[in-house]
């Protein structure tokens, strides 16, 4: 469903992505990990065209992201994205956050959008917070709202950009639980994360990136069993043994 072929990207002179190729099939969960600055977040932002790239092709559901003629807003509305810092809209209530794109992009009427919003809030366990503003919620709650907001668009795939990195430890699991549930329901997911427990539980494949390149792209079993590259072994030993 998502195909990346030889994607390269530069910030001026600096090459941030080098020849990245991979693919994600429908229903697959792919975890992307690697040291900070390795290009994981940039790569995932290329998938929905938030970051432009100079070489290679990315297609989502057969539509080329880099093509000038592509209707990017329409394509993005079909791909959910969850950010490290939640990025809820602070001037709107929780319910308005979930409704706005349904109304403005999908053309649903306000009542239908709110009804769908309430369904999803129930699903992530936050019904009673519908009328609050994001600042009144904890980080974990905000991130669950952000997931509900993305799901409200009925996406064909979800991108997660370090969804638990900004959370206090005791809140990480409430977010991961929602993500695990989604994965088990068959959602197609690309997840940038260091939560290896999550990867072990639901990932189909694990991609390891370093210095802008995909160093390892393996099934979960192979990756955790015997990573082929030294750098991936070193990285795993650092984040798993402490």
């Amino acid at each position, binding site marked *: 469903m998502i195909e990346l072929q030889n994607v390269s990207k530069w910030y001026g002179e600096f090459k941030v992505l080098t020849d990245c190729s991979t693919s994600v099939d429908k229903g697959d969960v792919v975890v992307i990990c690697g040291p900070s600055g390795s290009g994981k977040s940039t790569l995932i*932002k290329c998938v*929905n065209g*938030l970051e432009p790239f100079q070489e290679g092709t990315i297609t989502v559901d057969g539509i080329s992201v880099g093509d000038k003629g592509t209707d*990017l*807003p*329409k394509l*993005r*509305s*079909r*791909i*959910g*994205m969850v*950010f490290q*810092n939640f*990025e*809820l*809209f*602070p*001037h709107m209530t929780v319910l308005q956050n979930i409704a*706005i*794109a349904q109304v*403005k*992009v*999908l053309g649903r009427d306000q009542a239908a959008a709110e009804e769908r919003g309430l369904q999803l809030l129930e699903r992530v366990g936050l019904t009673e917070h519908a009328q609050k*503003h994001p*600042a009144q919620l904890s980080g974990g709650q905000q991130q669950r709202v952000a997931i509900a*907001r*993305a799901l409200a*668009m009925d996406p064909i795939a979800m991108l997660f950009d370090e969804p638990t990195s900004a959370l206090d430890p005791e809140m990480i699991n409430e977010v991961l639980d929602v993500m695990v549930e989604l994965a088990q329901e068959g959602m197609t997911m690309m997840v940038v994360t260091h939560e290896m427990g999550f990867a072990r539980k639901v990932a189909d494949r694990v991609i390891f990136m370093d210095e802008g390149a995909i160093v390892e792209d393996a099934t979960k079993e192979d990756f955790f069993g015997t990573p082929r590259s030294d750098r991936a072994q070193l990285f795993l030993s650092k984040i798993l043994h402490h």
Partner: protein
Amino acid sequence: MIDNFDFQIILASLPILMDGMGITLLLTVIAIVGGIVFGTLLALMRLSRFRVLSFISGRYVDAFRATPLILVIFWFYFAVPIVIGRPIGGLYSVLIAFTLFEAAYYSEIIRAGIQSVTRSQIYAGLALGLTQGQTMRHIILPQAFRNMVPVLLTQAIVLFQDTSLVYVVGLKDFLTAADLVAVRDNRVVEMYVTTAVVYFLICIAGSIFVKKLQRQYSI
């Protein structure tokens, strides 16, 4: 001096003072609204990807910020009628001059306000499928204006006081009206104390109103 303070003269000149306040408030309100609308447009042009728009907006702001307001007023009152071949009248010329002048200052305030909203908020809007225009209108500008409220208020107060400059084209704003009475009836102390108190009260009332508004919409 206090013994001689003549409250009667204040009451007697109330109609002329009220007329003056009418001009002052009309100018202030029109220049604020027009300045913010046009200033937002200038700010969006300035931040645009299209270099031509950004250039035009930048030079516009430079030009108006390098010109004293009183000169801009002279320009619209004396020079523009020569160019278009007919007089446009004192009131219209100052309304236009104030709006164009204020827009230059507002555009810089609004530009800073837009830039104070993090880039990730733009990403969040776009990622949901909103267009750039929708993201700006529904996500970025509402937050930007909230952040800008204190500075906008300061600018509004400066503008409110600057309206007294219209005396140069023969319009009678509040201060000019008070000054007329002061000189005509030789009641300088009474009239200047009254104007100072009125300016003070209106500015304080504006500040309190904005603080209340801010608390109500705080995020």
